[in-house]
């Protein structure tokens, strides 16, 4: 019983982290309808940047990620420009857009392998080895800190999307580009801002990742299924939905790993995804 409760709690913490990983997709896929399957690659990139700075300068990884935010934002903006000029403008079919991002995912992973090799990388930080204990409940800090920060980040994003002009324009652009133009906002610029933001979240999520677990280049691919499973299950656009779905997935994965062994864990997310797509594509809080 204690094992179960700990598994559930671990799952909740994991879910909080998963929400941070997924929010970028909620924006690029849920709101902008861009299937950026390269998103996990940017997360891993964020992890490696946090790793290098941590190794050489000893800076806390999450702090590094915050500092690296503008760079990731710029990268996202640039990628959107290329994507827009090559695909959206020309009205190309989705096939080429998907192939483009797949190529990016692939190239990023291979370049990381060439530069860093396939060894697992860790970071050092004060809270990584500590665990809070309440009776039989374990709360490892390396999971608690990212979870709390992640929820904070999502809350900030939700506020931004619902309260600010740009944020609401972003939500509007997914529904009606024409109306947006009438409001004197440039839809392309709005979409670029949104996409850049989604890549920026990857920087933060990457630092969370390397705090939680050691990282090597192919880890990103495990997350593709997870992020899309959570995004779809959470109802694509809804940030609160994303959090709930992330927690759910986290719990199921945690219980599976605890009772059936970790080698089954990757299948859980993907199994989730297949089932969701087959039976409830509108997600839990369906549109």
């Amino acid at each position, binding site marked *: 019983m204690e094992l179960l409760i700990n598994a559930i709690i671990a799952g909740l913490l994991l879910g909080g982290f998963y929400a941070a990983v997924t929010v970028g997709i909620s924006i690029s896929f849920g709101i902008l309808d861009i299937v950026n399957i390269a998103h996990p690659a940017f997360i891993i990139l964020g992890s490696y940047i946090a790793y290098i700075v941590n190794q050489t300068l000893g800076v806390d990884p999450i702090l590094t990620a915050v500092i690296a935010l503008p760079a990731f934002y710029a990268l996202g903006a640039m990628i959107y420009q290329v994507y827009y000029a090559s695909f959206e403008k020309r009205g190309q079919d989705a096939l080429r857009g998907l192939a483009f991002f797949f190529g990016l995912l692939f190239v990023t992973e291979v370049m990381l392998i060439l530069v860093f090799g396939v060894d697992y990388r860790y970071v050092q930080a004060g809270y990584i080895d500590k665990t809070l204990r309440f009776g039989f409940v374990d709360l490892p800090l390396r999971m608690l800190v990212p979870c709390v920060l992640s929820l904070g980040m999502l809350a900030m994003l939700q506020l931004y999307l619902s309260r600010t002009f740009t944020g609401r324009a972003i939500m509007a652009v997914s529904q009606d580009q024409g109306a947006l133009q009438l409001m004197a906002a440039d839809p392309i610029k709005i979409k670029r801002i949104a996409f850049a933001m989604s890549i920026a979240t990857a920087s933060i999520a990457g630092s969370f990742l390397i705090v939680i677990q050691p990282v090597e280049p192919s880890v990103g691919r495990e997350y*593709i299924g997870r992020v899309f499973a959570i995004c779809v299950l959470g109802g694509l656009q809804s940030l609160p939905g994303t959090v709930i779905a992330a927690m759910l997935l986290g719990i199921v994965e945690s219980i599976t790993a605890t009772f059936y062994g970790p080698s089954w864990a990757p299948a859980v997310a993907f*199994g989730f995804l297949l089932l969701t*797509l087959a039976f409830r594509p509108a997600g839990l809080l369906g549109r």
Partner: protein
Amino acid sequence: MRSFFFYLGSLLVGAAFFAFARWLGNDYLFFAGYTVLQFIVLATAWNILGGYCGYVNFGSAAFFAVGSYSSVALHKLGMNVDRYFPESLAGIAKLILPLNVPTLIIIGGIVSGLIGLGTGYLTLRLRGAFFAIATLALAVVLQTLIVNWDFVGGSRGAYIIRPAEVPFIGHYIQYLFLIMLVLSVVAIAVARIIEQSRLGYGFATIRDDELAAEACGVPTLKLKLVATTISGALMGMAGAPFPYYIGYLEPSSAFGLAYAVNSIAMPMIGGTTSWVGPLVGALLLGIIQQVATVTISSAVNLLIVGLLLVGFVIVAPKGIVGLVQDYMRGGARTDGTKTWRSRFAIFANMRPGAR
């Protein structure tokens, strides 16, 4: 009449290469050639669903591996008949098992085809993007299942001991090479036949505008399932002889990323609208990769493929065949008289302006 020349031509080319490689006396060309031919099958198979219908499959590795692992499972069954069959059936089983490679190919194709059908049924009612993501999911689920299935070796892998020599032909690798050669011709023939048939037109409408296709009476779901099944089956057929080629099969090599990226990159770089595209892409990229693996390293050759994919998708979305086609169209006459350019275009099923 065109078909006759096609089959004759491929037979001659294949025979010439085979004779040349034999004359060299070195088996390397057969090993390398096998890999390239394998890619031809994978690229052509991918293109049936991806290029013709517009539905991207990221899980080519899954279908390929299903073919490989069916062979492994049947091989294990054959090697241990007494352990897995009751006495009454053991006698018959010993007569049939172990199965020869061509039979394994057919079985691998059937199993993969069924998996393609199943995946399609679950996801093809949704938008193309969801199907693509689902195929990624499928690859991981299947890999996890195989890793946990001890009968085929799980994560430790499985050894396949292959005979050294085969009657008439000689070295076993040459036998495998011939089989893969025949399979490539079959795959391309299937693609060609589809292109020229009603099915091919149906696929094109699905790619162009599914809603309008439905309104015209095209049963889009059914056709999509047909495409997924054929594509999956061909990939499984390509995978079936693989354990015999490589001798030792473990999940990370069977499900390797190289298959996913190559089966997408080759048709997209070669051109997605006709059977010529995947062939050109597979030959080009296959040969480049063989050279790069030998001279530099295998990680770098994957990088080259990835960069070429991104590059072509941005700059030359119609692929090599598309570039050639634009050149061809430049020479076509509007009154319909045939020039050598337009004859070639017809041979390659390049319709005017087809993407």
